[in-house]
């Protein structure tokens, strides 16, 4: 029951068409008890951030298989900050290269789930984001 009040919005930014993995993650998170807002693909930075704010998501999950993910992700973090939504965490998954982890974490990304990540780690992270925001709001 705890999980069901954690809201995670999943989406893809840019012209990447590989949304199949993200759909699986959406269902897997649902089966773990989380509420997933599936925002789909071909978002701009503005549209995914707007969606996250309207949905008051605890976190945004982004999936990438193209190589522009560092730029897009950091822009999203920046946009969240500019729109007073710093408390919405950002996690990314997909073809994330280990060399980019540092710049992503330094840039404010909370979780990086590249190839070979383990589901329990993902669940723990999502759960933690929900719990953290509930604690802040209480």
């Amino acid at each position: 029951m705890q999980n069901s009040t954690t809201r995670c919005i999943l989406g893809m930014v840019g012209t990447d068409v590989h949304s199949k993995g993200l759909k699986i993650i959406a269902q897997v998170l649902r089966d773990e008890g989380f509420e997933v807002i599936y925002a789909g693909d071909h978002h701009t930075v503005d549209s995914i951030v707007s969606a996250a704010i309207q949905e008051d998501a605890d976190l945004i999950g982004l999936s990438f298989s193209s190589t522009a993910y560092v730029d897009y992700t950091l822009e999203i973090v920046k946009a969240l900050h500019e729109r007073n939504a710093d408390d919405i965490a950002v996690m990314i998954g997909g073809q994330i290269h280990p060399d980019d982890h540092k710049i992503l974490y330094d840039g404010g990304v909370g979780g990086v789930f590249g190839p070979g990540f383990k589901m329990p780690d993902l669940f723990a992270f999502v759960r933690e984001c929900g719990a953290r925001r509930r604690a802040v709001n209480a």
Partner: protein
Amino acid sequence: MDVRETARLISRVESGDEAVRDRVKALYRQGGRARIVGISGPPGAGKSTLVDQLIERYRARGLRVAIVAIDPSSPFSGGAVLGDRVRMARHATDRGVFIRSLAARGALGGLTAATGDVLAILDAAGWDIILLETVGVGQNEVEVMRIVPAVLLVQNPGDGDAVQSVKAGTLEIAHIFAVNKADMAGADKVARNLQEMIAHKARQTSEGWEEPVLLTEASNGRGMDELVAAIDARFAFLDANPDLARREEKTRLQARIKELVTQHIHRRIATSVKNGGMADLLDAVADRVQDPHSVAETLFRDITA
């Protein structure tokens, strides 16, 4: 109230946060301007596509549109995938559109109460049109439509759906019917069936209001102007018949208030009967030492004392 604040308030109301109760009370009293339209129907009828088209038309009129899209929660895990906003993605950057997805959150109940509060928040926040979209599968999802003055039921042209709607009770709560995907075989037949069922209804949904049955193809916009006109006509009807409108409003409010009272009772029971007290009571009834009525009377006395 900006978008962020609205969204956060909605979250707190959704999770039953009592701390915002006073705020919500005040907001209700400030509201009453927004036109609220409910859209329900079986899965696969194309509701979200239809809603997307409605948004386009209302925006063309300069109206600010809020959408609340309710999807069922998984009965097994309690989680949900809320995928309605994808169909309305083209409005994602329009600042005159606000889309919020809600999960029905199953056993926690109180969907009607929470939705009522969400509508009150959006109404007070200045949205001109509020579209409430639900999948008409469960009793909860059907019930929530009772709080809305204009209900649109969207049907598939496939067989059997018309029968389904009778079972679920949606026939009695809808003011407008749309058979979507009307280019498919069977659409005319479904429309005729609906017209017959409406003519033979035991009780009218809204006295003096004739429920239109429309054919639409939301995917290409056909029939959508007529649908908007039908929704306009519904509100015009209510404006032209203020006494009737008020009676109906009061009936709707009664439903909401009843559910709020029920929620209060449940909460009080939960807090007052602690430490396995409920389990003991249930044991007594199972052993036939006590009976269900007596236990209920005792509980009620305790919480209202």
